[in-house]
């Protein structure tokens, strides 16, 4: 139910640094998949996944800041809402160039990001003004969470389809049903880090490392999914999986180091004694 409030919202990185990392890094990763079209290949699809990881770290940090106030509904709810808003906004942003020929395809992710921020802002304002949640950073956090949700969603879709063009995402991600995977997996990357690490001893670097690690796992799944997409060759999918597994190993080792650093004592207890040993 209620989140264990008491996690202090400070940390190694201040909010603005994380926002810059997530928003700029996420959009850069998504836009760098354009190298695919420029060089007529699909090998650069993994960059979309890296963009998604950076956006997920941002989302996880925003969740961490807002949830330390105690929402009363648990951390998962806000992560599912992030992707709920993100999916609506990103599908709108990406499909708009398709519907209105005057809008260039390049504008898609930016429009999606902007629309997500607007939806987030309105929902944040409603939470405070109508539902009287009285969380001072609610509006700002909702904007961040919705924005990062949209970027995670577009980044992972681009990693699967090789492009953020709606014409490519539609057959590769939506019609195949991988969109459901992106939806739940993307929400996990945003909601799980704080949900797993919350408590009085919560530390920003440890929580965000879980975010990177979760992002790498869902990126690996996106890589596997892209193997089933006709327009993608096997090498690009395999590259996405390999890159994400390398990121995962590095992040997980680092996470374990942080756990050992923050723990009072880490000791091996051995296996449970057998019945004979107890006698």
């Amino acid at each position, binding site marked *: 139910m209620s989140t264990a409030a008491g996690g202090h919202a400070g940390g190694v990185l201040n909010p603005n640094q994380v926002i810059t990392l997530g928003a700029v890094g996420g959009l850069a990763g998504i836009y760098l998949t354009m190298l695919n079209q420029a060089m007529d290949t699909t090998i650069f699809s993994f960059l979309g996944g890296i963009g998604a990881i950076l956006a997920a770290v941002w989302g996880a940090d925003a969740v961490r800041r807002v949830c330390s106030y105690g929402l009363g509904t648990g951390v998962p709810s806000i992560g599912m809402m992030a992707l*709920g808003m993100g999916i609506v906004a990103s599908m709108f942003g990406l*499909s708009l160039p398709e519907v209105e020929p005057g809008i260039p395809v390049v504008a898609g992710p930016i429009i999606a990001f902007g629309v997500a921020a607007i939806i987030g802002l309105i*929902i944040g304002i409603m939470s405070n003004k109508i539902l009287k949640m009285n969380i001072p950073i609610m509006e700002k956090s909702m904007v961040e969470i919705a924005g990062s949700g949209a970027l995670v969603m577009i980044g992972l879709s681009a990693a699967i389809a090789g492009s953020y063009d709606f014409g490519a995402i539609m057959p590769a991600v939506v019609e195949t049903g991988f969109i459901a995977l992106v939806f739940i997996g993307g929400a996990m990357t945003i909601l799980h880090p704080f949900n797993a690490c919350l408590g009085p001893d919560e530390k920003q670097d440890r929580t965000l490392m879980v975010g990177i690690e979760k992002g790498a796992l869902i990126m690996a799944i996106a890589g596997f999914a892209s193997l089933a997409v006709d327009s993608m060759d096997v090498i690009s999918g395999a590259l996405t999986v390999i890159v994400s597994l390398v990121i995962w190993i590095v992040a997980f080792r680092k996470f374990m180091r942080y756990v050992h650093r923050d723990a009072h004592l880490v000791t091996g207890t051995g296996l449970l004694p057998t019945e004979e040993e107890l006698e």
Partner: protein
Amino acid sequence: MIDPITIILITLGGVLIGVGVHFIPVGGAPAAMAQATGVGTGTVQLAAGAGLTGLISAGFMYNNLATSGAFTTSDFMLVMASGAVGAMIMITVTMFIGQLIYVYGVGVPPVSAKVKKDPITGDVQDIYVSKGTEGHGVPTVSFVSGTIGGLLGGVGGSMIYVQLMEIVGDPTNSGAVALAGIFATGVFYVNSVLASYNIGGTIEGFHDPKFKRVPKAIISCLIASLLCAIIAVPIMGGVI
């Protein structure tokens, strides 16, 4: 170009979902330890579980009716009924199995701490509440309330889905089906989370004093769903 009826019905669907959440007996973490009335998980998980089952059953019915000729108003009613029944089955099964575990596993009587007498059966409640808890299990009134919640959620979800499919008007277009499904899911999550913020995480059903907060949820879900509906119509237009 944009049909106002479509937008109104999508918005209404979102509001129904938001109201439906208030009927579902959500106990949250305390209920998982049998220290509060309701099913021991969060609002979003319960509402989404029931709502998504409703979407599947509505989608099945829509596919059957729409591919076999023109889609009429009575077909629309049938699809919504199918969605409602699907969601109701899911939520009642969840409550029933939870109840078995509470009664035979944990060993507590299903009882509400918010009312002295069950408004439906008239059974005395307060003397059965264990000390230090806020009730436990799923008493009759909460069970009935949860079923109503499933009905509203299922109707709301299938209403959104059908309206989106009708914009495209081609039930055989797999892209449209997937997009309408995932979009309905997105709207479902936004509305159920807003509603769960309104009840602050836990509620026992329509007899709970927190239920009086429904008007606030209606306003917020109305605004949020309207926003989503205005965005939805061009998305579905992009599929054609």
